[in-house]
């Protein structure tokens, strides 16, 4: 009898602790200043919305806000796959005031993106029907594990970042180093590669473009810069652009080879802070960020 009691006590304590811990961590997630917490809390009011994978982090918000005087939001995350980006953007548009321009880095359309990243967003599942559906469809085991053990929902880098940005802004999230000489040499040795995009990804992107357009948001599709010797290794960039243009009816603005100085790169796929500023100046000059023209909305780029 005594032994049975302690087994029940373990299970009860484990359950209660899990629920209590889950509640506290859920509160942290909700109250955080991290981009997705702000997204799901609602009430964000920005003119410019950005999305992409880690390469989308170069939409350096403090600089854009300083230059344009317009509030910005960025939904980019390392390895962001297109299906997850689509969910986040749609949720953003449903819960926050509509931005005037949505800028998307289309290099998310690649199978090599981290499809498991969706599981990292388990901590936001209680806030979003769409996210919940995506997780249940793609990673049912993680979804159900999160239902059984609430602590499991917060078992991810995404939650760690939400915790880290609990009281501070995440707008400064950008590489601040210069590509090393070894890495520069390493690029030369790399083989040519292709983007591996699928019809599903194209449909997902087209869905986002339509959804945003219906809500009066102008959409700009861009290819952010690569370290030039690396950009030369991409075999099918024209094919990717063409497929996207056919699927969305929008022009893809190709900046893949637009920054030449080594000093502007943190590694061969990412600009650093200096490079990001140089690139953003170009986007502003070209009117992609809507500075040189009317920000009336509704049109497509």
């Amino acid at each position, binding site marked *: 009898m005594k032994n049975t009691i302690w087994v029940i006590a373990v299970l009860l304590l484990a359950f209660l602790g899990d629920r209590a811990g889950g509640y506290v961590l859920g509160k942290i997630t909700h109250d955080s200043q991290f981009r997705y917490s702000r997204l799901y809390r609602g009430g964000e009011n920005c003119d410019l919305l950005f999305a992409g994978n880690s390469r989308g982090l170069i939409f350096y918000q403090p600089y854009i806000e300083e230059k344009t005087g317009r509030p910005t939001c960025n939904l980019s995350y390392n390895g962001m796959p297109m299906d997850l980006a689509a969910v986040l953007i749609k949720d953003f548009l449903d819960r926050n005031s509509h931005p005037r321009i949505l800028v998307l880095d289309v290099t998310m359309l690649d199978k090599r993106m981290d499809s498991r990243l969706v599981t990292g967003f388990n901590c936001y599942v209680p806030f979003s029907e769409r996210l919940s559906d995506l997780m249940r469809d793609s990673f049912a*085991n993680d979804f159900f594990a999160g239902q059984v053990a609430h602590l499991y929902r917060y078992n991810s880098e995404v939650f760690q970042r939400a915790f880290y940005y609990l009281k501070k802004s995440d707008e400064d999230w950008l590489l601040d180093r210069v590509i090393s000489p070894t890495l520069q040499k*390493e690029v030369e040795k790399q083989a040519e590669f292709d983007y591996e995009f699928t019809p599903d990804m194209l449909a997902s992107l087209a869905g986002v473009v339509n959804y945003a357009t219906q809500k009066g948001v102008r959409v700009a599709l861009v290819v952010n810069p690569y370290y030039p010797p690396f950009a030369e290794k991409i075999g099918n960039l024209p094919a990717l652009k063409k497929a996207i243009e056919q699927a969305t009816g929008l022009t893809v603005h190709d900046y893949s080879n637009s920054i030449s100085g080594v000093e502007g790169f943190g*590694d061969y796929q990412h600009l650093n802070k200096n490079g990001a500023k140089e690139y953003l100046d170009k986007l502003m000059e070209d009117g992609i960020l809507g500075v040189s023209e009317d920000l009336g909305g509704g049109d497509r780029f």
Partner: protein
Amino acid sequence: MPARLLAYYFEKMIFNSLTFLVFVAAFLPVYFMLKGRARLWWSLAGSYLFYGWWDWRFLTLIAISTLVDYYLGLRMGQTEGEKERKHLIWMSMVLNLGFLGFFKYFNFFTDSFVSMLQGFGLNPSIHTLNIILPVGISFYTFQSMSYTIDVYRRQLEAEPSLLKFATFVAFWPQLVAGPIVRASDFLPQFQKDHDWDWNRFTSGTAQVLWGFFKKVAIADSLAPFVDQCWHEPMAFTSVNLWIAVIFYAFQIYCDFSGYSDIAIGFARILGFDFPENFRTPYFSQNFSEFWRRWHISLSSWLRDYLYIPLGGNRGGKLMMYRNNMLTMLLGGLWHGANWTFVFWGFLHGLYLIAQRLLGKSFGNLMRQLYFPAFLKTGINITLVYAFTCLAWIFFRSPNFGIATDVITNLVGFENFNYVSIMNKFIVMKGFLLITMLLAVEISDLKIQWGGVVQRSPLFRVASFAVLLWLIAFFGTFGSNAFIYFQF
């Protein structure tokens, strides 16, 4: 639940899988309901199901190995003539090592032979075979061999019951990744039925939970960072490689010792006592001590069945060095069919020899410097850990090119700074988990947590619940296989 999901869930039979959870839930109640031969049959059936879940074809191999060693053991037990006994032990060696050699090393030696001929300008057309490596073959082969060798040495009576012997070879808790339990330790434990025992259940469960925490929370959390760095070492800055090397040392420790803990824990619940397989190896102050603390069941196997028969410490210093080196080289090769494993063994052989050659002078130097004891201990532990990490680089690398890249990048110290760390969140989590591990292991030296779990019901309830929370919060799930399964 859709069939697709069921297929996914029940794909693998490993400790950190749903398949295993279902297996244990079905196995344990019936096991304790049965007695005598019925229980043995149930254990054998469960073990064969556990193993056959990987690939039913593996069962043929383990069954042949079991039948032949059982028969040879019996014959040896009935035979007095030394010549015939020698004959029989050779047959056992040839069969066991033949299986191991063919399934694990055939392609390796063929490739190496072809490369060697190509080095002489020849171009032979020798083809390798498409051979599946049976999971855990190295473990059960060594376990089975220990039986025939002990019977040959007259240190163990031949086991008359085929059922007991087959269960000994295939016992599921330690079948695929050890610990390698000697027949002389294990077979006598089949003599009596083990009734359900709450004390064994609590201490076994504690060890199982601790093992799970080490595997799914620590090892599998460190793995992605390590894998990324090793995949393309030159693409990452030096500081990342340093972190990856430190992480790998703990990844492999937690992965392997985690498996051992789970195996030992389940065996204890079932009524069997297995020897410990790891004893805080990274606190070793010299390499002999390291090998008394790391994969103890293998190192003691190699000592008793290889090093000592080779001559051990007898025959002068040179012979001892040779025996040390041969044992470590073969120990390296046991791990896998790759020259990097052999080189890993070579490095450890070298460390053991260097320790014997320089250990005394180093000790004298420490004494002359009047370092306090704790500092000397710290220096010794750090040195052993650092050299162990150096060897792990070769163990982890698929080839010497990658190992060279890792080392070149490590010693280059290019961009060795905080901002160059690739993913600070994963790194912080990794170091937090390592700190937790070390805190428990260091405190365990004084407190003996296992004893506290037994004595204090309150602590037991709290510690089990905390471990479950930690596993849920830090665990990486998705049925990541254990590293040592490949060996």
